[in-house]
């Protein structure tokens, strides 16, 4: 399609073309210098994929598959990304990534709609982030993937749970919660049916790991871990 894989926009946001390969994204992340940049590499490495796959698989493809373990979904949802969708009549819409995947393999994608790009806001790119992943195996195929992002402007904290759930769950707190608040928020947001039941992890284990990893992230990103 000739789209530039990744580009930094004048306002500091990052636009990732749907055709951007995992290799291109990794290369960008290693060189961009933004505070959230290390998250790019972590999510790229969450794939169960060799360099051959990295050179062919695209960010858009991973998003449009809508699979719970899709690390590009994790990355772009955690950084509050916005999709650019183009319909066949040329009309555009820009829903949030976190609202894109509505179930395992189910997407908010209209008939004939094209995913053109995903844009990550500048504020998210300046966030301090934390990444945790759990898998039944040493490599790949996430059973739970949780990302935290601490906003540099207002100190708010977001915790995004993916892979363990059928769709991304992004919890936002105006100020970093304590352990109980985080746990209650997770329990309230994710129902029993939302924990992903598939070959790569029992739902009860995924739930356990999601809670555990979220708490680890909370501790890492809060100033004092004893809140």
């Amino acid at each position, binding site marked *: 399609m000739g789209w530039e894989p990744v580009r930094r926009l004048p306002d500091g946001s990052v636009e990732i073309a749907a055709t951007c390969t995992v290799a291109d994204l990794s290369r960008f992340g290693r060189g961009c210098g933004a505070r959230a940049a290390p998250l790019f590499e972590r999510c790229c490495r969450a794939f169960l994929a060799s360099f051959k796959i990295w050179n062919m698989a695209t960010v858009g493809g991973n998003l449009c598959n809508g699979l719970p373990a899709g690390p590009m979904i994790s990355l772009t949802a955690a950084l509050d990304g916005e999709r650019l969708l183009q319909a066949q009549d040329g009309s555009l819409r820009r829903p949030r990534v976190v609202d894109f995947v509505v179930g395992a393999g189910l997407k908010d994608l209209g008939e004939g709609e094209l995913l053109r790009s995903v844009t990550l806001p500048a504020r998210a790119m300046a966030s301090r982030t934390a990444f945790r992943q759990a898998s*039944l*195996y040493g*490599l790949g195929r996430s059973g739970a993937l949780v990302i935290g992002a601490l906003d540099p402007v207002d100190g708010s904290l977001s915790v995004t749970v993916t892979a363990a759930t059928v769709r991304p769950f992004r919890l936002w707190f105006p100020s970093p919660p304590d352990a109980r608040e985080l746990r209650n928020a997770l329990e309230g947001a994710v129902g029993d049916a939302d924990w992903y*039941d598939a*070959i790569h*992890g*029992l739902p*009860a*284990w995924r739930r356990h790991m999601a809670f555990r990893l979220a708490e680890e992230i909370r501790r890492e990103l809060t100033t004092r871990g004893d809140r």
Partner: protein
Amino acid sequence: MLRSVHAADAGKVMNPMQCRGQTEGGIAQALGATLFENVRLNDSGEVTTTAFRQYRLPQHADIPRTEAHFVETSDAIGPLGAKSMSESPFNPVAPAFADALRDATGIRFTELPLTRDRVWLALERRAGTAVGRSPGGLRPRWAGCGRCQRAAGSRAARYEGNPVSRFPEARQGRWMSSHARFRRTAAGHTF
């Protein structure tokens, strides 16, 4: 897996390099069956894990380096004292892992693969903290491949109940077998 050591009695080994290859390959296959591969059937008996996306085979990066040692013996029947080799390195892997888990947790697991979620669930059940009977299903509608193995102590593949061992306490410390060696993990280990 901290270390993989395999001792094989192949009688008179005429081609050590090829024999070592069979050892390493057999171990890789067995690791797949022990830790990764899981065939699921639906109520009609149809296989539902029909693609590699659902059926996790070990990749090269998943397999540890193995030290292969050959015991110099001789077979009265085999040519020049050689014994057949081929599939035998496959056999001890699952029992070695099952024994290690038994040593670490006190629980005798009788179903493969020995994945982290199953181990976690068994520990939770023993602690009495597991929610529900069998979240996600641990029923062993498991059709092994032609070389299907049974972990030590297992009987039928039918498992509906609690895998909690009768032994009340898990032993501490390191465990080493002739094949695989790994350390009992600390309480903070993530399953």
